[in-house]
């Protein structure tokens, strides 16, 4: 089963074609990796699918539903979550509040219930806080729930961003270079987490430069170069593909 499918998906920024006629599928329940040299269009692919950048032409289907024209918030509510290559947290909120922001669409209480502090609202608040703490526990941040994420270590901030993405209860999760700038130990935490998520049935799309990481977790790999797919397959095959080696090493 394919959870996501793109048809001739193209994205250009002025003259730069960052994604060119991409037609590909993401298989449900698997970890799919995107690799490719700097500027090859990996982040752009995530940005277009999650509605952060509008598509230039082509179509995107999520569970057979066309989402090419959807707003970012609608796409997120369908169950597509993401993290950012350059971490984007809400530094004016506490750690747990960051996660709770992504729980907003699970609340049914309107403003009137909030102002009158109804039992229903208090119960919803309690349930969502519990859920948020559960996710913080999963990424090892439970003891920092009420602190500010502002001065926290890079690896912890990355984990918080992942917890926030998971708060959407996503079916499909995009991680844009989750291990970049991480220490070995932090790296291991993320890797283990990805395997746990796969067990829970969450489909993950991973953009990474660290080949050890890809080798360890990816079920399928797409290789991008200048916005186009130049190779695809399991990592062991990709690893030896002369086209891929050429793209990474230059003309030699």
């Amino acid at each position, binding site marked *: 089963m394919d959870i996501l499918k793109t048809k001739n998906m193209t994205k250009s920024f002025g003259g730069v074609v960052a994604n060119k006629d991409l037609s590909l599928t993401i298989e449900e329940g698997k970890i799919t990796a995107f690799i490719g040299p700097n500027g090859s269009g990996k982040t752009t692919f995530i940005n277009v699918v999650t509605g952060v950048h509008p598509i230039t032409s082509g179509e995107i289907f999520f569970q057979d539903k066309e989402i090419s024209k959807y*707003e970012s*918030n609608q796409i997120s509510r369908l169950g597509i979550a993401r993290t950012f290559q350059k971490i984007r*947290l809400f*530094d*004016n*909120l506490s750690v747990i509040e960051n996660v709770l922001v992504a729980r*907003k*669409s699970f609340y049914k209480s309107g403003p009137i219930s909030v102002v009158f502090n109804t039992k229903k609202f208090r119960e919803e608040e309690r349930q969502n806080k519990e859920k948020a703490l559960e996710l913080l526990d999963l990424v090892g941040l439970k003891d920092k729930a009420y602190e500010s994420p502002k001065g926290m270590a890079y690896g912890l901030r990355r984990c918080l961003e992942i917890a926030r993405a998971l708060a959407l209860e996503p079916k499909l999760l995009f991680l844009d270079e989750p291990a970049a700038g991480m220490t070995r130990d932090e790296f291991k935490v993320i890797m283990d987490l990805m395997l746990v998520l796969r067990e829970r049935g969450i489909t993950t799309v991973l953009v990474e430069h660290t080949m050890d990481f890809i080798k360890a977790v990816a079920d399928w790999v797409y290789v991008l170069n200048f916005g186009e797919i130049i190779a695809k397959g399991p990592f062991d095959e990709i690893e030896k593909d002369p086209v891929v080696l050429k793209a990474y090493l230059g003309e030699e």
Partner: protein
Amino acid sequence: MKKKIIFGLIGLAVIFLFPIIDNNTYHLYLLNRALIHAILATGLVFLTGFAGQISLGQAGFYAIGAYSSAYFSTRLGLPIFLGIIIGIGISVLAGFLLSIPSFKLKAFFLSLVTIAFGQIINMLVVNLQPITGGPYGFFGIPFYHVGDYMLSFENVFWLLGVILLFTLYIMYKIKHSHYGRAMLAMNSDDVATETCGISTKKLKIAAFGFSAGLAGLAGALYAHLAGFLSPEPFTFFESSNFVAMAVVGGLRDMLGGVVGGIGLTLLPEFLRFGGWENYYLMVTSIIVIVIIIFMPKGLAPLLGNMFKKIFRVKSSNTKTL
């Protein structure tokens, strides 16, 4: 915790007893204006400090609330209460409308649009003479009354105080809910907020609507206090004054609008009667500039800390006893 509540109650009691201690009519009129400004500036704290949006056209909503309530109660003979509700309603609708440019525009460009909005409303006030009275003014707006009983300035002070407290309560509850968290998130990063499944458009519509509603409420309350309206208080100068109130009080503080609204309404008057009658407006502006530069978080957090310190000294004393 209990002590805090008792402290708060004593503070409130002192404030509410004030009109009985000092019943100079002019002082009371000023205090009432100050409370009205506090309500309006609280709306700006919500819009700018919480939701991260800008409005330099708040006097437009203030005018819409004032003239609507004046028109419906004076010309059409509706009860004041209904006039005020209609004034709020029309302001909220105008606020929804003004939120549309904020979908695409930020900071500088958004402020230009809101200034233009304020100017348009001001032009309407001047030119729609049959409704607003234009430059000649709108006369005979009924003062606050219940049946045949005319409220005194003291009564109005208490009424406005209760409305202000109610406003703050609503804002407090919203801030500490999923809506408030979403607003603060949007203030920090709207792309990330969208990817959390939140429509920032809807949030902006709500934030502009809420702050416009409070400005409209303030305008309507002013109309029935003054009894007379002319275009002067509804200019760009007033809009920037309102923003100054919110900033001086503290944009990120629940009580910023209250501190700034009351402070900047009373300060010029203190200066005027304190021997600065020739320069009081200039000195007020200088004080505003100094506060903005040296206390960018505003006065409210400062007062809050002072209060906490005094309170802590007291409680530690009782412990040693």
